[in-house]
């Protein structure tokens, strides 16, 4: 299909069967997002596929939908806070773990990956209980903190791959040429881990913007993030307005890909 037409590469010709499967998968992966995009241009009052008429009226209705606008602002705030907390914490932790001779390295590693190994719904229960006891529920900053906690492993993976990739001889060269330890870090080490940091920051923001299940537990009406707001609206509601709001996510995702490709290269994203 589309793939084989673009690609003049040898791989596709060598593996026609495999390539056909992959082409189908590409369609399958894109399907729900495409459907949401198409329905968002629906001209009718209710969801119908294919739409009877096309219009941008539901996009025009977004600025007036204060529920969604408020929830979107909450999501941006929480995702920004998540990034601001997780990026420095992740960088320091990764450096401490890899460059320093700390004890119980493997145990620390298992501990730091806990947010990934604990099922997200259980993290939701835990943070609901703990934040409840601390009186932190229903605060957007608490959502930001929660997002930083549960997404930390992705930041760590992103930075550790960079830190692991540093050739120590470059740092040694800097030092033997007279650079002080701190100078070495600022001028030699940090620039090398920067791509990992940028990738991690992008991931933190996007994951924060999309996070749903933990936010569902620790927010209630009024401070909903956008995914939770969409969740409460979708069932039993057939207005294409939801599709228009949802397409914002598809567009943000596409934008993130373009930005990532420009800044660090798409390949780089794989290292996280």
């Amino acid at each position, binding site marked *: 299909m589309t*793939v084989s037409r*673009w*690609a003049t590469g040898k*791989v596709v010709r060598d593996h026609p069967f*495999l390539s056909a*499967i*992959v082409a189908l*998968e590409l369609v*399958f992966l894109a*399907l*729900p*997002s495409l*459907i*949401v995009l198409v329905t968002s241009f629906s001209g009718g009052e209710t*969801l119908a*596929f294919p739409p009877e008429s096309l219009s941008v009226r539901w996009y025009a209705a977004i600025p007036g939908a204060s529920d969604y606008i408020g929830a979107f602002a909450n999501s941006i705030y929480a995702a920004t806070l998540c990034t601001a*907390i997780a990026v420095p914490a992740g960088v*320091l*932790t990764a450096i*401490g*773990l*890899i*460059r*320093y*001779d*700390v004890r119980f390295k493997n145990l620390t*590693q298992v501990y*730091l990956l806990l947010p990934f*190994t*604990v*099922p*997200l*719904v*259980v*993290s939701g*229960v*835990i*943070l609901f*209980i703990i934040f409840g006891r601390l009186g932190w529920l229903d605060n957007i900053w608490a959502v930001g903190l929660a997002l*930083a*906690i549960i997404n930390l492993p992705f930041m*760590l993976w*992103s930075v*550790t*791959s960079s830190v*692991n990739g540093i050739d120590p001889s470059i740092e040694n060269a800097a030092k033997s040429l007279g650079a002080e330890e*701190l*100078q070495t870090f600022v001028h030699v080490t940090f*620039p090398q881990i920067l791509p990992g940091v940028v990738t991690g920051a992008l991931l933190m923001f996007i994951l924060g913007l999309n996070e*749903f*299940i933990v936010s569902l*537990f620790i927010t209630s009406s009024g401070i909903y993030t956008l995914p939770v707001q*969409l*969740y409460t609206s979708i069932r039993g509601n057939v207005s294409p307005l939801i599709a228009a709001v*949802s397409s914002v*996510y598809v567009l943000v995702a596409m934008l993130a890909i373009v930005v990532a490709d420009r800044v660090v290269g*798409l390949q780089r994203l*794989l*290292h*996280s």
Partner: protein
Amino acid sequence: MASEYDDGPRGDASRGWDDRWLRLKWRVMDGVLELKGALPSGLFRSRRNGLGYAFLLPGVVLVGFLFAGMVLLLQYSFLTYDPYEFIIYEYTLENWVEALTNDAFRTVFLRTLKLSLVVTVLSVVFGFPYAYLTVRAESELLRKSLLAGVFVPFFTGTIVRAYGWLIILGKRGLVNSVATGLGTGRVDVFGTETAVVIGLFQLMLPFAILMLVPAIRTIDRSLERAAVSLGADRLRTFRYVVVPLSKPGITAASIVVFTISMANFAIPWFLGAGTVDFMANFIHSILLRSSNYPLASALSVALVMVTSTIVLAVFYFVGAGTMGLTVEEDTIQGGGGQ
């Protein structure tokens, strides 16, 4: 950067501003170094020191919320539920008895386990060719398209994709309008396990691919060429060379897809129509509808125990795959550093 310590003669035109900027930078750096010198020097002298632990602190504190929470959950799971006070601090085994003997719970649990396993197999089996083609694509355009094909859904989030599937598979959705158009009658996939598997498979496929790519990338191409030149056909090369060498990636992909599926909430909620609930839906309703903290805690602890037992068993028998953080591990690369 390279010119910053370059004291050699330069063109006069660019000197003025650049030099002033450089001097300022030097002065700042000198100041910082002086300040550092004033601190107890032991702090920075050796690598085997407190600084490493200080660096770990922010991460350790953040994860501490979850760690403390796990302990708290364990305690809560032995406390007594009261419809008015929610929790009474009297220890009991009641919640665990309930969790282990309740039929509804067992049904939901076994369903979650079964469908998660199905989704894991589907994602790894179908993720493999995709990851392979992504790694081996010679054309930059093809590789980028394949990567974008994974990252766009990955970045679009659960809810929006669940919503997309609802429009496709719902009672008056795309599939049914096509089916009625063709006169084949209604297709009642909405509210069935099939619908949940389809949605969850699409949700998990990018995760599987992303975990497989770094592992496949480490495979030396000449090994495949050697197999082919020794007379193996494509399928055999794949079966006996590529797949075995990708084992760390296959392990990592299976674990990631399995654990995330086990905890999924949104897909069963939207596509299961209340009849295909997963553990997450069950726990959520027990906690937020009936405020039964102790039972919700017991179920959460049970979910963690079962999931981690399975994951640890895989680690033990197959190895940690590509999930480690440091290079000391036998199969390194938190997702494939080079």
